């Protein structure tokens, strides 16, 4: 009986390995196991080498591992590339056409057990389920749920194939890879993207525009497929520039809006981020990072766009950046992002990456009753003549009304503007508006999400990480042995509140930053933020150049 197994399915794109993998993962979750799936794929539709690695455990599993217990080879290349990762008692499952010698080999007659290539994935599912000792009713249920919408004969045929694969596997008499029983309640099977999608739905997203880019495309695609009953409008724009401008337009018209993209697409959206900042329009921007620069490695992962997101958009305006570490955090933080975007009237980011976006985990169902929809814009004003979209207020937040619903006028502008929204070049107004926009930072700072700390109070080594690095860091902590390592994980990477981490970082024997990029972007940001706040600033932002007089007037030389 195993308490944990790592199964890697490898093959070409187009061989259906994702389908087998997803079916198997579902069956494992329904059987009460903890799972973690890491997907690796190449930027092509057919061919290439793709992997679907399912790690299943009786105890919690948090990240990928390299050692393989069961290797399912759908092509020769899988053997070549991965046989070195096999555990000593590992098992290779392969079609007989694939060549390999040595122990721990099991041939699956895919072709004989499947009436047509269409059914080979169900052969894989049946065989693996039997091998892991899953109750046959579970994969049967998965098949019924997935093919149930099609004709009953389709379900029947698939069940027959499953049965054949099951009994074939049983005849081989292999028990060594059975998983120990668990009585854990089955949860949901979610990727990081799914967490974000469900969070957006729960937060009441109304509008999403996009231009396809891996690894975020799944977000609008799913919102489109599953969100009809919620009245969500999803529009494929002509490019990313259009996408963000559309979302801002929809938000101006009152809709809760979002865009989802990756670094390259986001680079095009940057002028739109600035527009949201200036027009004070709420928008949630999901950036699924992948390796750059430029088109980089389109289907791999990296945390290399933190600086881009942090500094995106010209000019100065506040923003918040969340970085979920798993699908649950993806849900919670996306809900939070919509709420904060509305309350601070500006852009709020959810920063993910390909690894998190595509990796499945078992997740307990979300408690939807806890989610309050974010505040909505208003649709009436006592005296319509007095309504001002950018009225100067104590906290910098002006009343946001939906245009055309009443006799008031909503005027929003990318140029500097008066409180009524109309264009101005008055430098005093400029100064007041800059301060108004920046003062909304207070709202964002009021509830910065503190980093989560995992570990004992006093710790020798503190791993500091953010976003998707959470799972791997926690696993490393566990493997390092008792009380040696602590993990400080940031789910909000901007703005930062030093009170949340200064003490923790100061008391650790040594601080080690863990992130998926080459230049330690978050470490540098954090180090910068730890510097005590200095009050020695002379700043000017009314649009005129600094001059000596201005400086001397503010310099206390006494």
């Amino acid at each position, binding site marked *: 009986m195993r308490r944990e197994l790592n199964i890697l399915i490898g093959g070409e794109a187009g061989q259906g390995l994702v389908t087998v993998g997803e079916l198997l993962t579902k069956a494992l979750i*329904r059987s009460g196991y903890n799972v973690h799936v890491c997907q690796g794929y190449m930027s092509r539709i057919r061919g290439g080498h793709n992997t679907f690695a399912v790690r299943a455990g009786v105890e919690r599993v948090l990240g990928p591992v390299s050692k393989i217990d069961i290797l399912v080879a759908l092509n020769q290349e899988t053997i070549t590339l991965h046989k070195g990762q096999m555990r000593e008692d590992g098992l290779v499952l392969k079609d007989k056409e694939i060549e390999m010698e040595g122990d721990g080999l099991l041939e699956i007659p895919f072709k004989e057990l499947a009436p047509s290539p269409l059914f080979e994935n169900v052969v894989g599912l049946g065989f693996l389920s039997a091998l892991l000792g899953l109750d046959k009713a579970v994969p049967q249920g998965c098949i019924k749920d997935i093919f149930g919408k099609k004709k009953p004969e389709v379900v029947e045929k698939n069940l027959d194939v499953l049965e054949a694969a099951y009994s074939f596997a049983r005849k081989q008499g292999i028990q060594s890879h059975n998983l120990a029983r668990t009585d854990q309640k089955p949860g*949901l*099977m*979610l990727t990081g993207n799914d967490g974000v999608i*469900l969070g957006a*739905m*729960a937060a*009441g997203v*109304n*509008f999403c*525009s996009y231009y396809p880019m891996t690894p975020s495309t799944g977000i609008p695609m799913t919102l489109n497929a*599953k969100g009809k*009953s*919620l*009245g969500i*409008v999803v529009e494929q*724009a*002509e490019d990313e*520039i*259009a*996408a963000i*401008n559309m*979302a*801002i*337009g*929809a*938000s*101006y*018209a*009152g*809709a*809760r*809006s979002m865009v989802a993209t990756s670094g390259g697409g986001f680079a095009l959206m940057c*002028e*739109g981020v600035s*527009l949201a900042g200036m*027009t004070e329009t709420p928008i949630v921007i999901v950036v699924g990072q992948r390796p750059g620069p430029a088109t980089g490695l389109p289907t791999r992962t990296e945390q290399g766009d933190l600086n881009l997101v942090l500094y995106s958009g010209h000019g100065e305006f506040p923003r918040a950046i969340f970085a979920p570490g798993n699908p649950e955090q993806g849900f919670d933080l996306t809900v939070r992002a919509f709420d904060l975007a509305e309350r601070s009237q500006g852009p709020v980011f959810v920063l993910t990456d390909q690894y998190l976006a595509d990796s499945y985990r078992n997740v307990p*169902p*979300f408690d*939807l009753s806890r989610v309050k*929809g974010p505040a*909505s814009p208003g649709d009436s004003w006592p005296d*319509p003549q007095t309504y001002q979209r950018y009225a100067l207020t104590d906290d910098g937040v002006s009343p946001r009304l*939906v*245009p*055309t*619903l*009443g*006799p*008031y*006028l*909503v*005027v*929003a*502008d*990318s*140029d500097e503007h008066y409180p009524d*929204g*109309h*264009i101005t070049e008055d430098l005093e107004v400029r100064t007041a508006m800059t301060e108004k926009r920046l003062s909304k930072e207070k709202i964002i700072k009021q509830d910065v999400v503190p980093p989560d700390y995992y570990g004992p109070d006093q710790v020798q080594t503190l791993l500091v990480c953010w976003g998707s690095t959470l799972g791997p860091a926690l696993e490393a902590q566990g493997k390092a042995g008792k009380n040696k390592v602590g993990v400080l994980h940031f789910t909000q990477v901007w703005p930062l509140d030093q009170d949340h981490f200064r003490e923790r970082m100061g008391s650790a024997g040594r601080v080690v930053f863990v992130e998926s990029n080459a230049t330690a972007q978050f470490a540098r940001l954090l180090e910068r933020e730890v510097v005590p706040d200095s009050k020695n600033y002379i700043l000017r932002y009314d649009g005129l150049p600094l001059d000596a007089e201005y400086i001397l007037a503010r310099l206390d030389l006494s």
Partner: protein
Amino acid sequence: MVSVDDYGDFETAWCPGCGNHSILKAVKKALASMGLEPHESIFVSGIGQAAKSPHYLKANVFNGLHGRALPAATGIKLANPRANVIVQSGDGCNYGEGGNHFLAAIRRNIGLTLLAHDNQIYGLTKGQASPTTTQGHATKAQPGGNPSAPFNPVAVAVTMQANFVARGFSGMIDHLADLIVQAINHPGFSLIDIMQPCVTFNKVNTFAWYKERCYEPQGHDPEDWEQAIRLANQWGDRIPVGVIYRGTRPAFEQTLPHPTNDLLYKNRPARDVLKEIMNVYS
């Protein structure tokens, strides 16, 4: 009764004699004649002299980025399909920086009215060639003459069967106001390319130049696409104004599934529906 005065009277930043003044008059006239109250329309513009127009009348305004008026307006219309959404910007904004959006808006056929102030020059940035500047036209930035062939927005729009394509002239205010009414009333995407003198930077295409050439073709049937193509390509000594082409494609926003409410912001997720969606993942 709505009158032109309800749309207010504002001081503008335009040069005296600029064609923008007359276009503004025509817009106010059209809206008043339709009985539309100021708060019933949303004006969306980009950046440029023309793009300042919405600031000079009473209306809801979204003054966005250079070239990006159409996408912003598209989002607005999708979020509120009942609103009267009018996009106003210059030739540089619409056809240069926003060229891709112009083509996409025609294809999408979303219910917007685009008023393109076409002065065949960049006004706000002081006289560079625009996409509609005639080849050979010398400017400060192109002293040897503009080397590129001009873009013909009307011909492109007709070729792509934009739902409503018209050419107007700022010197014919009543005619233009009538075109604007027709464009607003026509479902789907409407373009009025409005010839507009820039008295400061365009010394070639002057008021007199347009006045001499503009004519209203007799007996033209805007539903006849081939006739429309011929007319759209007429440019030079004689320039036809009026409705050039009218199509019957359904407006994009009418083909959308809006199950609960036309105004997107009113849709709240029902908890049982959410639960059902979540259960699909179990």
